[in-house]
């Protein structure tokens, strides 16, 4: 595992500063700051309702923060919808996968960014060819190119969602429990993919419940509880139990900051 201290020097790729968002008087996210550097995987942990998904949706453009600011490469960014997020090369793999079930893999992969030929008409053949190419890399067993994604297995659907996120030169990747619906083999595939993307210099936010996955994949971990940030730790300086203590009791170990 790379040394997190070297990764955290320099200008962060993303900085979420003092973000707050409330829904009907309940503070879902309460003055939370988090940063992410190139080539780094930062885990976001916490109970259901701790506010990690809400926090990250401010970055992906699904929600707009009530206060606080977002900096991309040190510059203030305005992200008020998913289109803006894509503009900053932020890609998100949602827990629900956000696929249109009635469309095929290629249509989903290129949804919102279709390839068009002369006259502005969709170039379906080119999109299918590109999809075959990237799926050949991510999931060589994938064959079902001409059926709606509703006919695919959980793992196949997941690989379509991942292909969509990595195809468009993402710089910042948000993964919301990417392995929740997967079998062991496919989970391993995702883990390898994360390592590969890390090497390419992407910054990855990983929302994850599985402590072991966090210990294995993440450089740093941010723990949230009741909308607040309990603390941030370098994963190789703490034990499973330290992190569990933060999640369950909100207890901050000495190494945390």
């Amino acid at each position, binding site marked *: 595992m790379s040394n997190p201290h070297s990764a955290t020097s320099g200008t962060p790729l993303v900085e979420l500063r003092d973000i707050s968002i409330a829904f009907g008087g309940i503070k879902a996210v309460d003055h939370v700051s988090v940063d992410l550097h190139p080539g780094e995987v930062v885990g976001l942990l916490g109970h259901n309702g701790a506010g990690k998904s809400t926090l990250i949706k401010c970055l992906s453009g699904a929600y707009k923060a009530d206060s606080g600011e977002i900096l991309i490469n040190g510059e203030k960014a305005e992200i008020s919808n998913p289109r803006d997020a894509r503009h900053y090369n932020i890609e998100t793999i949602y827990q629900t996968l956000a696929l*249109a079930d009635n*469309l095929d893999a290629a249509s989903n992969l290129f949804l919102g*960014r279709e390839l068009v030929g002369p006259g502005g008409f*969709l170039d379906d053949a080119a999109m299918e060819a590109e999809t075959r190419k990237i799926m050949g890399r991510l999931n060589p067993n994938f064959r079902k190119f001409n059926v709606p994604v509703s006919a695919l297995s959980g793992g196949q659907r997941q690989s379509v969602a991942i292909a969509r996120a990595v195809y468009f030169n993402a710089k910042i990747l948000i993964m919301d429990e990417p392995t929740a619906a997967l079998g062991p083999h496919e989970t391993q595939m995702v883990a390898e993919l994360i390592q590969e993307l890390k090497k390419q210099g992407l910054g990855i936010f990983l929302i994850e419940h599985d402590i072991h996955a966090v210990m294995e994949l993440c450089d740093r971990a941010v723990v949230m509880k009741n909308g607040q940030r309990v603390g941030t730790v370098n994963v190789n300086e703490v034990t499973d139990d330290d992190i569990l203590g933060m999640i369950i009791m909100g207890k901050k170990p000495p190494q945390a900051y």
Partner: protein
Amino acid sequence: MTQTPHASTDPGLGPVARFLKATEIDTRMLGMVGALLAIWVGFHLYGALVNGNGAFLTPRNLWNLSVQTASVGIMACGMVLIIITRHIDLSVGSVLGFTAMIMGIVQVWILPQSLGLGHPLIWVVTCLVGMVVGTVIGAFHGWLVAYRGIPAFIVTLGGLLIWRGAAYLLAGGETISPVDSTFALLGGGPLGAVGAMGSWIVCAIAVAAILWMNLSSRKARRAHGFPLRPLWAEVTMTALTCGLVIGATLVVNAYPWPKGIVTQYAAANNLTVPPEGLFISHGFAIPLLIMVAVAIGMTVMMGRTRFGRYVYAIGGNPDAAELSGINTRMMTVKIFALMGFLTGLSAIVASARQTSATISLGQLDELYVIAAAVIGGTSLAGGVGKIYGAILGALVMQSLKSGMVLIGFDAAIQNIVVGIVLVLAVYVDILYRKRAK
């Protein structure tokens, strides 16, 4: 480039299944065409056996059927998009009535005074006004749905009442007629058709287009190394579609003008009518050509443009569409605006056909339009629907209606039968989808 083995070589499939798979025929469409043919033959035989006169499968009736289907068929194309995106539009009949009334006022009360009666610009301006008014009303409905969050059912239920009432207020319930004589051609009739030569030209263009499309799609698939349909299947399908077009041309050209019109025409053109009479073909009716053009344009839009892709995406998963960066609200406005545009177009055809704008024009059309889309396989759950399905659905319903008129069933029975067919069609569709899963 690897050629994956194609379905036609699959062992273990019966000859019929193999044929269907190789030709990639949509089995649901096949079912609908079968149902349509059964209705046609059924009415013809019933007429022949019970009334001693099979009037259904005659050039005259089929030609009339094509004209009667046009208005509902044009609107059904737009309704497909509305229903795919999980909305509904109950207002189209009233908007049609309102738009027709505006056009009636423009071409009968306003324009003749400034341009002079029969001025060639009258019909052009009138049509433009109709299409603009329809589009604006549709866009307004869409805005209320998308940006004000009012359910489409409520917005358009309100629209159903409001626009019918507004149509009444516009002319105080008067019938406005007669419409401009050029405008009237858009509704069909002996003069509102393109004649034998014109029909053959249309036919030639259509056949050329079919050949070109099939060839270029085959070329594109080969260029990318995708599996190809077997050649025999390709040839069969091409021959079938071309045959259909040529057959339709023969039918409309076999329907001659009535004697009275021929005599008038001959007198106006200094022709002498031979004793056995002059055979002047109707050819394709203009409203039919308008509907076909709309259907082709909409099919291309749904299959080959971003707009169409987004319509399906929104229907399949609205949240995913939004997260993919699609401006779903603006799309909703555009979809309703398109529905409004097609309603305006349909108002042109409908009011031209009866050469007047009446207060009841388009009444209950919303139900026929929705039924056409649904019978044609558009799913009310969203995400699924085809333009050709809606056209076939409109044709099925109109066939039932005119068939029952021909064999002498009264209006009450017509409504009962159309209602039963609607429910039955959706039930069959549900069964089909269950089996497909």
